[in-house]
């Protein structure tokens, strides 16, 4: 149990740093949304799953699960809306601002 949660949490750290460095490495905006989505989905999944495994089957674990579902829905929706606004402005201006 302890080894599993440690492994999940350290993997979450690594994906968090990789996704953040991706914001520097990619030149295009849409590629940057890809790097940000890694942090928003995979890293939160791994770290909150490790916290849930440590906490066991309690009410706090249920709250963590609800936070995970909420972050999944809102993070992807926000990045989708951002890409849509980017596409509309790109069509109007011919290039990104």
């Amino acid at each position, binding site marked *: 149990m302890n080894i599993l949660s440690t492994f999940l949490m350290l993997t979450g750290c690594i994906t968090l740093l990789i996704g953040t460095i991706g*914001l520097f490495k990619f030149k295009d905006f849409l590629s940057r949304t890809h790097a940000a989505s890694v942090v928003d989905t995979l890293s939160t999944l791994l*770290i909150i799953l490790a916290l849930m495994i440590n906490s066991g089957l309690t009410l706090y674990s249920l709250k963590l699960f609800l936070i995970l579902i*909420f972050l999944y829905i809102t993070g992807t929706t926000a990045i989708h809306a951002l890409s849509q606004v980017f596409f509309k402005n790109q069509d109007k201006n011919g290039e990104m601002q």
Partner: protein
Amino acid sequence: MIDVYIITIIAIILAILISILRFISLKDIFTKILTTNLLGTKIVLLILLVSAIESTNDFSDIAMVYALINFISTIVILKYFENRRISK
């Protein structure tokens, strides 16, 4: 287990510093909104880890409210941006 929490907190703080550097060094407005959204997610994870170290369960509500405010602020900024463009 506390050591792993502290390593994770250090990694998240490093990622927050990198995100702030990205926010300062670029003039593209879309990347700035993206970075702000990412900062909110990282701060939610930071609150949850601090709550796990302190072994109090009260911070999870704060984390949930922070996630909600983060989502609403991103959508409102995008709506303002869109309406300002349409009304021109």
